[in-house]
């Protein structure tokens, strides 16, 4: 059985940052990802990132992904396994991976440290006919459009005015697709206001205290009824409007993809501020199990910029725990922690900071 110093599960922003950082500490690494290519959700982010120069501010997500992938190709101590799903981590320290055409080949590998950076999945919303084709996750539509150049539909209703809802609406317009409206159940915009302003300047309405009530259609989405809601999220009768759309994009939040952590036996906690069950961890992203680290959305839903910094922290410290100290370990660790503090030092991140406090061992 092949052994590695560190196996990183997930090749998105957190996993890429963890793998490259750990590689610079001379650890030998396996990076496992179930997607067709590395980059996770970065490869479809056509917008420029926020943050500071250290987190690649002003650079489009897709270019950040390419920079990482390019960097990894020059690091001989990282092995990459794409289209491979890590399915379990067992008491004897074995990680099982399904590879090959539709996962028909099982392989076993043994890491001395495991970094779980599996990201998140998109939330569903309950409404009539929510299973009809044409009801898509907003992130999924982003993949179709921005990675594969495929137009998912002609007219879209976006549900949710968080950053994903706002960004994907803008990107739909860039792809030449009509966005009829954005509806948001909360009384104000959840995403960055600059994203909202950008959408408004393009003439797209954002209806707050409004949600979708029902989708109509036989084999696929034909129209949607939206409806205002009161303070208790009840529909206000008489406020229904019907919009002619063929696509509904759901951008109603993400949930951490924490199955591996549950299965491995990490101490878990339900933390609403972090959007679900997450592994409890110390400040260096180590879970209750000494050999398992976490980073990115699996540790709590946040932005890609902070996911990358968490990845760097996890990579640096997982390596250090094996005695593989980066020559500037202390300096880098301090710098990464300082960056995280800065990224979270704002009103938008207050709840995340609160959640992390609860999740800290």
């Amino acid at each position, binding site marked *: 059985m092949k052994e590695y110093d560190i196996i990183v599960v997930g090749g998105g922003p957190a996993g890429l940052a963890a793998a490259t950082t750990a590689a610079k500490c001379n650890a030998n690494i396996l990076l496992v990802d*179930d*997607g*067709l290519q590395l980059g996770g959700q970065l490869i479809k982010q*056509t917008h420029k990132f926020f943050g500071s120069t250290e987190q690649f501010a002003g650079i*489009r997500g*897709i270019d950040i992904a390419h920079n990482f992938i390019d960097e990894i190709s020059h690091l001989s101590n990282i092995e990459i396994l794409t*289209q491979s*799903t890590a399915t379990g981590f067992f008491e004897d320290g074995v990680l099982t991976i399904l590879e090959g*055409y*539709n996962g028909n080949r099982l392989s076993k590998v043994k890491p001395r440290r495991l970094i779980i950076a599996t990201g998140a*999945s*998109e939330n569903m919303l309950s409404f009539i006919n929510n*299973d*009809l*084709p*044409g*009801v*898509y*996750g907003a*992130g*999924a539509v982003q*993949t*179709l*459009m*921005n990675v*594969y*150049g*495929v*137009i*998912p539909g002609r007219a879209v209703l976006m549900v949710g005015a968080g950053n994903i809802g706002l960004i994907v609406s803008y990107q739909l317009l*860039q*792809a*030449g697709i009509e966005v009829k409206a954005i509806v948001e159940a909360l009384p104000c915009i959840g995403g960055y206001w600059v994203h909202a302003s950008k959408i408004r300047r393009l003439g797209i309405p954002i209806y707050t205290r409004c949600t979708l009530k029902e989708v109509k259609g036989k*084999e*696929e989405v034909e129209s949607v009824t939206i409806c205002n809601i009161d303070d208790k999220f009840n529909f206000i009768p008489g406020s229904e409007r019907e919009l002619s759309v063929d696509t509904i994009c759901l951008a109603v939040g993400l949930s951490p*993809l924490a199955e591996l952590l549950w299965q491995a036996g990490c101490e878990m906690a339900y933390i609403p501020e972090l959007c679900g069950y997450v592994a409890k961890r110390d400040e260096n992203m180590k879970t209750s199990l000494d050999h398992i680290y976490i980073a990115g959305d699996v540790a709590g839903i946040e932005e890609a910029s902070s996911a990358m910094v968490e990845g760097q922290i996890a990579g640096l410290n997982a390596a250090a725990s094996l005695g593989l100290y980066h020559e500037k370990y202390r300096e880098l660790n301090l710098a990464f922690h300082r960056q995280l503090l800065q990224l979270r030092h704002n009103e938008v991140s207050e709840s995340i900071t609160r959640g992390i406090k609860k999740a800290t061992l």
Partner: protein
Amino acid sequence: MRIQEHPILHFKPGKKVSFIFEGKKMEGYLDEPIAAALVAAGIKVLSYSRKLKRPRGFFCAIGNCSSCLMKVNGIPNVRTCITRLEEGMIIERQC
């Protein structure tokens, strides 16, 4: 349908390949996800639910939700959103 021009992105599609969907010959690009090729060809219904035979389409694009499971070359339950399209694939809806 496919994006023809884009302000930020430049798409370099792979080689054109043909495949069979429900007995009909169709075209897509090599190595793109099977589900993407189908959506581009205007196919929204990828399968039917087992019990109530409700239509099922693409949903998550990350191999997580099982909404796009199809029969590919006779193998059922293939996650078509993260399986690459190849020349001559036989793709069927499962129900």
